[in-house]
């Protein structure tokens, strides 16, 4: 028995040293729609893959749409994809499995799997959605968490006390750039619920018929490239996603030089300030504030300070080099810590054998 354990430990140590250990990233099937939270996971996985780690994408069902249509084909080619359903997942103690917080039921299912487990939390509002009352991540064997901001880290730590939280701030892709041509009379609109988009647009045309020539663009269903191009053509963006905890869309908009009129989310992102956007506290006022912005924009009456603030903020989240560096260094740290644990176990086993 001890020889078997000894061999297993040695194999795990070797796997980790050789970067053969699997790092599974669970993703949801967006059915071809662009989704910043899924892109973030893919970016993390591909960064590790390119750094020599054995990163693998896990999806629920064998029929998985993939991300070729909206993100990039390279993610599908470079990264191995495996379904959970219908296959038995290969797992060894040195493997890591990273699961978004929305998959509480999967966390529950894999509690007993003998591997490293990490929660990936991008939206604080969702962390209890799929957990039973009184249930916490640590009870399910998840003692580590990766999140997107220090604010979220604080909140998570305040409720999941036994979980240690690391932060990897998302980076906005290089595809988001300012347009070389002046903006058109188009408003990007991004809401969590599509009905809200429709209501907003209909209310606008009824309340402000003099502006019926202004066009809205719902950004759903576009590839990332199309999304970035479409975004950059517009003169402003409307963002109403109160449960968002990071706010990728407004940052993408800012990077394209397009001001954002946003409903301030319940958990205001750290980067949000009065200089980089127009943040409205009351949902019912967003439309009127947007129309005021429209009127000012038509009269060239938008303060330069806003554009400067947008530039300053978006540049903080545009450094892909930093993003990949943070990912690599975090996973190196995980590997070192876990290697230390395995080595310690091995040493103990050796000591026991020697004592015998």
């Amino acid at each position: 028995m001890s020889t078997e354990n000894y061999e297993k430990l040695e194999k795990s140590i070797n796997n980790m040293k050789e970067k053969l250990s699997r790092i599974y990233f669970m993703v949801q099937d967006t059915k071809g729609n662009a989704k910043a939270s899924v892109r973030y996971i893919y970016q993390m996985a591909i960064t590790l893959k390119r750094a020599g780690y054995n990163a693998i994408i896990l999806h629920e069902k064998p029929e998985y749409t993939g991300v070729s249509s909206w993100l990039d084909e390279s993610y599908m080619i470079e990264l191995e994809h495996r379904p959970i359903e219908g296959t038995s997942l290969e797992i060894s103690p040195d493997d890591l499995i990273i699961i978004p917080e929305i998959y509480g039921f999967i966390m529950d299912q894999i509690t007993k799997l003998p591997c490293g487990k990490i929660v990936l939390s991008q939206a604080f509002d969702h962390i209890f959605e799929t957990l039973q009352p009184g249930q916490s991540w640590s009870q399910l064997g998840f003692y580590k968490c990766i999140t997107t901001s220090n604010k979220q880290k604080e909140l998570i730590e305040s409720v999941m006390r036994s979980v240690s939280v690391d932060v990897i701030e998302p980076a906005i892709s290089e595809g988001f750039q300012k347009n070389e041509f002046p903006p058109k009379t188009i408003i990007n609109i991004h809401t969590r619920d599509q009905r809200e988009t429709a209501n907003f647009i209909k209310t606008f045309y009824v309340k402000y018929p003099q502006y019926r020539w202004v066009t809205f663009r719902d950004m759903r269903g576009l590839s990332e490239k199309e999304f970035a191009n479409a975004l950059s053509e517009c003169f402003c963006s409307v963002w109403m996603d109160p449960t968002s905890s990071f706010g990728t869309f407004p940052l993408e908009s800012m990077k394209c030089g397009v001001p954002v009129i946003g409903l301030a989310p319940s958990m205001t992102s750290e980067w949000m300030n009065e200089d980089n956007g127009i943040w409205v506290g009351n949902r019912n006022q967003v439309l009127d504030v947007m129309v005021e912005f429209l009127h000012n924009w038509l009269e060239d009456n938008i303060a330069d300070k806003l554009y400067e603030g947008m530039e300053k903020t978006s540049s903080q989240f545009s450094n892909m080099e930093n993003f990949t560096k943070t990912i690599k260094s975090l996973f190196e740290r995980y590997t070192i810590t876990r290697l230390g644990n395995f080595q310690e176990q091995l040493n103990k086993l050796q000591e026991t054998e020697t004592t015998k």
Partner: protein
Amino acid sequence: MEQTLDLSVILPIKSAVAKDFADYFDKAIKSLKNQQLGFKELIIVHSSEENLVNHLKSYDFENLKVILVQYKETPNYSEQINSGVKKAKGKYVSFFEFDDEYATIWFKNAQKYIDVYPQVDAFLPLVIDVDEKNAFNGFTNEATFAANMTSEIGVLTNETLLSYQNFQTSGMVVKKQIIEDFGGFKKSIKLTFGYELFLRLTYNNVRIMTIPKIGYKHMNMRDGGIFWNYKNGSEVMTENEVKFWIESAKKECYFTQDRGIKYVATEN
């Protein structure tokens, strides 16, 4: 050297007898003085009316370069504009009315768009229409942005014009060469002379774009104005005549020269 827009503004004036003329005129000229980007010259093509001549001669235009051109024949808006264009030294020309105002940002934006879209021949402002009390009536030229009106946002096409007529030539910044090549306003065409010009230009593939910035304030139906006269004044038109001029514009746009169109009233 300070940058200026290579533009001649053409301002035709028929009479200073119009109600509140001095006040309107002053506001119009101030809107030129207050431009955030300067321009080449203001050409005022005026009638021989003594009051008007005296007013213009005594008015303080300050730093504006003003050329007064006396139009000796019976004053006519179209012909006055055309003669102003002939005198213009700017690469671009713009048509102005004494009861209107340019937005202070207009020439600056025109220059910005000229730099970005050198292939575009004419730029229309987003026009705010007001009544005599300065109350907002609506926008003009905005239809080029409407999703169901045009295939390319902001671009005025012949197809759009055939289904919608409400576009405004005043305030437009157009290459002088375009007017020389395809002709200016046609004197014989009443009511729809601006519409006919747009149809003619777009028929000849002249590229016209509306800049999505408020560039011009236009007074609608000023008592004594050209269009007021067609509706309420000495040249009042019947519904049939209005239709005639719209249809004539659609037919005459194929001809560069003015073919001397006349409306002959017929009994129903």
